[in-house]
């Protein structure tokens, strides 16, 4: 255990070992095609090998928490769309769940089912994009990403017809959802889910057995389970290291206990496992979606007692969390009885998953660093908030 805690010395002096030639200090900087946004890594390279890697954050720090303290609970809901801008509906759900915990609100049955359906669609869409960008980082520029985005557009059409916006849905409210399903949405969703199942077989046939993908990702960026747990890594990255921890099964929030779905676990903890875990999670999500769409109950979508205007929860604090596609997304709200939250804190899964980036990339080639960062799946809106 102690080896993990002895974090490497971070002082950034120029390290040049004898005879090994000088070290090249390089910034894989804020503007770089493979950093998924404005993320910067200060890297010390010995030839091609990484000797030290220091992530630098803050280039997309948009002060979400400070702005949230100056406005009411409800007006922060559209801001949660812009946290992890790939999965706006799971962000909404995490925030709504926490406020319901804080104020003790009930959510009607139908709204819970709609939340599960939209969250699982978001998870599928997020994993598709991740695999597309991971292959793009590996050099397959364009083709896998085109496939992934073609399917993503179908899911975005569903979101647009349901919530009115493709990416920024702002759909959930404290105590339910904003609007009921439009007519015909259910059949459309079922067709998309069947289409996705067929597409996944085609996608896997192309990628999973591909030896270039295997050569570039197996035994690369290995993360042991003890190091992952201690560093607060959550989500598919943690399960790829073999730790069976999924907030849907642990907290049993929403109506997840009514669906039987399995949690895929990896045993090497390398980049190939993370890729495979996400593909398997997509299959599990499709299983959940089929069952949820089949027995979606009737009833109100919004808790009649919930008041939107002038919502003042009692003084207190609450920490709510859900299994977002990238990991455990948590909100910590402290209220002092006024309509504005006293303290509004977002627990970003991407930032926590980056804690172990240096351990995974130490001693690897520079090209592997790009692939490892791709498999960690970060979104800067959530990392920097």
């Amino acid at each position: 255990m102690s080896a993990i805690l002895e974090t490497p010395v971070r002082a950034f002096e120029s390290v040049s070992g004898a005879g090994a030639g000088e070290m090249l200090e390089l910034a894989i900087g804020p503007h770089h095609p493979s950093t998924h946004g404005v993320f910067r890594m200060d890297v010390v390279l010995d030839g091609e090998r990484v000797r030290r890697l220091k992530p630098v954050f803050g280039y997309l720090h948009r002060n979400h928490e400070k702005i949230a303290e100056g406005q009411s609970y409800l007006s922060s809901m559209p801001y949660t769309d812009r946290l992890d801008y790939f999965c706006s509906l799971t962000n909404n759900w995490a925030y709504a769940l926490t406020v319901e915990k804080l104020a003790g609100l009930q959510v009607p049955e139908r709204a819970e089912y709609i939340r599960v359906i939209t969250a699982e669609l978001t998870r599928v869409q997020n994993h598709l994009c991740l695999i597309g960008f991971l292959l793009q980082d590996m050099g397959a520029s364009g083709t896998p990403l085109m496939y992934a985005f073609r399917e993503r557009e179908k899911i975005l059409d569903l979101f647009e017809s349901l919530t009115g916006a493709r990416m920024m849905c702002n759909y959930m409210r404290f105590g339910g959802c904003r609007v009921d399903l439009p007519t015909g949405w259910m059949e459309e969703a079922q067709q998309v889910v069947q289409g996705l199942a067929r597409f996944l077989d085609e996608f896997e046939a192309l990628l999973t057995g591909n030896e270039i993908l295997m050569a570039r990702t197996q035994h690369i960026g290995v993360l042991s389970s003890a190091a992952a747990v201690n560093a607060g890594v959550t989500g598919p990255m943690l399960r790829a290291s073999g730790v069976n921890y999924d907030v849907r099964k642990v907290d049993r929030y929403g109506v997840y206990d009514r669906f039987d779905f399995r949690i895929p676990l990896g045993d090497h903890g390398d980049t190939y496992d993370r890729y495979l875990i996400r593909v398997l999670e997509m299959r599990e999500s499709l299983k959940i979606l089929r069952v949820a769409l089949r027995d979606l109950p009737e009833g109100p979508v919004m808790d009649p007692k919930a008041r939107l205007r002038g919502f003042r929860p009692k003084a207190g604090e609450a920490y709510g969390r859900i299994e977002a596609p990238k990991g455990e997304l948590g909100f910590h709200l402290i209220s002092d009885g006024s309509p504005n939250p006293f303290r509004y804190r977002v627990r970003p899964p991407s930032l926590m998953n980056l804690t172990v980036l240096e351990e995974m990339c130490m001693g690897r080639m520079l090209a592997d660093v790009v692939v490892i960062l791709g498999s960690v799946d970060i979104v800067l809106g959530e990392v920097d908030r």
Partner: protein
Amino acid sequence: METLEEICFRIKTALPAARVEIIPNASPCGQRSLLLGREQGLAVATFLRDDPQLRLDYCSNVTGVDWLEPSLPQGFVQSPSSAGLKKEAGEGLGESGTGCLEAVYHLFSMAHKNGPVVLRLRTENRLAAVRLPSLTPVWRSCEFQEREIFDLFGIVFDGHPDLRRLLMWEGFQGFPMRRDYLVADDFECEPTPHGDVPKRMSPRQGCAEVIQKTATADPRV
């Protein structure tokens, strides 16, 4: 999972010198928290992680909170019954009654898969004594979150391997998330034909002398 009282009792038996206190939480979710003394913070954290029954091996979230007015800590979590408790404890409140900075840790156990145990560590006051023990040697997930709290609130974490600003740039002065921080005034809203928008806005003077008033000295030094 054990109730908070049992955990509190076990901590006191294991570490007699530790000062532990249960903070009630008036919200329906009932997540009460444990207020730890600063000196024994690291020892208690190590105990919570290594204790076989608890095994709180996963620190999910670290939040920085800025209690500006002294009265607020009781007001926020104060349930009438424990009002008396606050008087003789006395430590929970900033000694000089000037409010305090606080770091809240949410601990979970991945081994036993059970719910949050909330720890609170408070500084003496908000201006000079803003030092807290860092829990990064116990849980590595606190590393970035403590750096962020240092960056936005100004709490200095002793024992942190690499305490630098996480989000703002190095030369930045001031701690933006504090409640008395005034934003520099380049937010001047474009004047509209009605003209009186700037007057209605809350006082946001960014002029130099106002900014000097807030704590800008680099506490690390």
